[in-house]
């Protein structure tokens, strides 16, 4: 231990290392690309079977994209922590003296990166399968909405994922805890996306107040997570 533990590693460096580690694991294991992305696509197809009406589908496309994202978020978060808790890696990171705020931000960034790719695919699926039209004016709104909503989802997901990591019955507990919390993201992102698609006669400008809600949500839970993540994962 001589001299090594003298200077704590900065939060940003911990975050970078953790995010790189998580993304590298996902890239090599290919579970996300081979299982989670196809699952999300399947959900989109299933929605079409259930609703069975082209007009209804294009009207509710925004909501379906975000619902499919939420379902996938549960799987992504569970995977993110299962990889760590399986062999006590999360405890090892704590014992190694890594700042829990850094671990939180790092894991959230990794989840965020995976979610953004997933959302791009889902939006593409909405355009192809549900026949929604996206105009140039809606693209800026959509991109901002995706960034803010994804940040909020990733922070909340990581926060509650950390709490349930290693707990008995975490598969069922995580959705119960997380879904009520992310309800504002579902509402806000859906409305903003509908405005971007101009579905149901919505104007693009209607979507911007919702992006504000999404941004506030992301900031609130980023701060909440940074402050409390250490307490939640402590054994």
């Amino acid at each position: 231990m001589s001299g090594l533990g003298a200077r704590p590693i900065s939060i940003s460096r911990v975050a970078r290392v953790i995010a790189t580690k998580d993304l590298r694991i996902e890239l090599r294991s290919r579970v996300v690309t081979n299982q989670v992305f196809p699952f999300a696509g399947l959900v989109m197809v299933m929605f079409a079977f259930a609703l069975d009406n082209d007009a209804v589908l294009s009207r509710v496309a925004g909501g379906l994209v975000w619902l499919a994202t939420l379902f996938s978020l549960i799987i992504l978060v569970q995977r993110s922590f299962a990889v760590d808790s399986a062999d006590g890696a999360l405890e090892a990171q704590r014992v190694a003296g890594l700042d829990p705020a850094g671990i939180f931000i790092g894991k959230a960034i990794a989840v965020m990166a995976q979610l953004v790719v997933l959302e791009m695919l889902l939006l593409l699926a909405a355009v192809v399968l549900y026949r929604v039209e996206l105009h140039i004016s809606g693209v800026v709104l959509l991109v901002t909405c995706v960034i803010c909503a994804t940040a909020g989802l990733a922070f909340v997901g990581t926060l509650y994922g950390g709490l349930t990591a290693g707990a008995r019955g975490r598969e069922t507990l995580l959705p119960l805890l997380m879904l009520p919390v992310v309800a504002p993201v579902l509402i806000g992102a859906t409305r903003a996306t509908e405005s971007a698609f101009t579905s149901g006669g919505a104007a693009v400008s209607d979507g911007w107040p919702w992006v504000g809600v999404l941004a506030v949500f992301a900031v609130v839970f980023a701060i909440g997570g940074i402050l409390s993540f250490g307490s939640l994962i402590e054994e």
Partner: protein
Amino acid sequence: MTSASSTTTQTFTAKVATPTTRLVGAMAIVSMAWVVLGGLFVTPSDVNQGDAVRIMYVHVPTAWVAYLAFIVTAIASACWLLSRKHAMGFDRVAGASAEVGVIFMAMTLLSGGLWGRITWGTYWAWDPRLTTTAFLLVTYIGYLAVRGLGGSLEQRARRSAVIALLAVLEIPLVHFSVLMWRSLHQRASVLSGDGDIKMDGSMLTTLLVGVIGFTCTFAWLVMHRSRVLAMQDAVQSSQLDAALQDRASESAGLK
């Protein structure tokens, strides 16, 4: 090694009733009896709603108590986190209050649904207040699930305190987003008629007594439940002590 464990078994003597709880309990019984009599027999029926208005004497007080319960949980959780000693009493009050709150919130939604069906013709409306209440219920069911995760008492207290405080962040955001959602689509009109109810003096009195009665019932339940939780915690730690002692005597025997 069984003999060692049997000698360490302790008996727990805890007071289950104190003068305070007896007084609160008595107040609860008296005021609840008043509500039953006043609500069902003394107060007149409403001009528009008829006898359906009597649901109000249960619905309004249970809603008040449910929200009060979650405020108590949040304050007790903050006290646990902030107190230097991390006194477990705060954690038990938070847990007991959330348990009672969940029951009262379920009663509120049930009585509200029935009242809504009779007066507005629908069990449910996507009104911000209703939706927030439903989310609060689910959030605190999750909170209780977190309390049941196991681990040490300190671990349970820390986890659940953080969850309770995160719920304080979550609920205003949910309420605000539902408010904005509905205001963009349709005006939240269902509950705005509440203020129009012309209230007879006896009705208002019965309602107020109902609020007092249900609050006393809440306080009585929380006090007793906290004591039961204290006893459960004591049993858990004594079992741990006994197991440790067993193990110690086992290793001493091996030497």
